[in-house]
């Protein structure tokens, strides 16, 4: 198997570009059997999302498409209420964890309808609201996962608290990495502060899946594969049925 490491070359300038992170094995091997490229054009991104969203609709998985008015840009979005161990939240904030978790008569009057269903867990766990956005990055030419997290009363989580809630299967390695895997970024389309999972390592888990699919002459939906890997890092569940029920775009 021929393994080559090449710098990415683009005909147009690509902004914020980490040479050391990325290898492009797709575009340089003209004349040889082209390994599957890890990159995704925006049109394919949108098609993959459309197919993904159809299945989400079928199983009521809660994803929606947000179109930016007047543009042909958009992103997928999903909000989740997530019970977590109170230890995820730092205790040095003004109110205590216990107060937050106790549902008294006074507080109940102010609790929104959407949280009514989780009152039972409030007493044992803290409940967080995670909002996930799947965006297309023109500079990296791949999808990127943005998210914001807050307590039920709207307090945004700190970076440390977000790290506490990264899945243990990934946490240690990601935290010890030589770059910032989780960073606070301005949402490229909304302009609000979000966290972003750095897309730098996308290629290392996408390439094997893409190569496999190519070897078996199967076409796969990039977004399904990609989200199945990155989602669980941030406690986002992607049900197994996406694997079999979502087709690749034509």
């Amino acid at each position, binding site marked *: 198997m021929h393994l080559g490491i090449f710098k990415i070359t683009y005909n147009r300038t690509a902004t914020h570009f980490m040479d050391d992170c990325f290898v492009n094995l797709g575009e340089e091997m003209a004349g040889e059997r082209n390994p599957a490229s890890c990159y995704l054009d925006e049109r394919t991104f949108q098609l993959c999302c459309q197919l993904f969203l159809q299945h989400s609709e079928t199983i009521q998985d809660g994803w929606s498409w947000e179109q930016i008015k007047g543009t042909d840009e958009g992103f997928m979005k999903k909000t989740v209420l997530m019970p977590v161990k109170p230890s995820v939240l730092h205790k040095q904030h003004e109110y205590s964890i216990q107060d937050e978790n106790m549902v008294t008569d006074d507080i109940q009057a102010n609790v929104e309808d959407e949280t009514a269903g989780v009152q039972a867990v409030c007493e044992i766990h803290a409940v967080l609201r995670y909002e996930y956005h799947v965006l297309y990055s023109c500079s990296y030419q791949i999808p990127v996962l943005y998210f914001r997290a807050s307590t039920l009363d709207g307090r945004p989580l700190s970076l440390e608290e977000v790290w506490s809630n990264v899945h243990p*299967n990934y946490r240690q390695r990601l935290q*010890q990495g*030589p770059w910032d895997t989780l960073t606070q970024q301005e949402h490229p389309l909304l302009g609000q502060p979000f966290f972003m999972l750095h897309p730098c390592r996308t290629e290392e888990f996408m390439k094997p*899946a893409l*190569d496999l699919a190519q070897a078996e002459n199967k076409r796969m939906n990039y977004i*399904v594969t990609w989200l199945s*890997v990155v989602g*669980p890092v941030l406690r986002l569940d992607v049900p197994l049925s996406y694997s079999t029920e979502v087709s690749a775009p034509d």
Partner: protein
Amino acid sequence: MSDNAESPTETQKDDPSIQHAATEQTGASDEKKKIDVLLKAVGDAPIMKTKKWSVERGRTVQSLAQFISRFLKLEASEQLFIYVNQSFAPSPDQEVGVLFECFGSDGKLVLHYCKSQAWG
């Protein structure tokens, strides 16, 4: 699972929930508790000398990944990725028994794995 496991045999002894699957067996007698898993390397992942394992249904993907990482002696900075149905990463908390029900065929569950580069 023992942290001191140096060889497959030791790992096996300390970890009865993951065992070599006999090559001739279809796993019928253990079908209630264990399922047969076939591990296939992708990319430049090291190939496991023993590819076929009997795994307890309740074992999670994360736990299986840890087992494979130890078996392959991966460094702490190397991440193992596991795929089912070739291109879907099951959640680390997913039970292998559930994966077998969804994706098993010919009495076994095929899982592909690859690893990331180490830091530096």
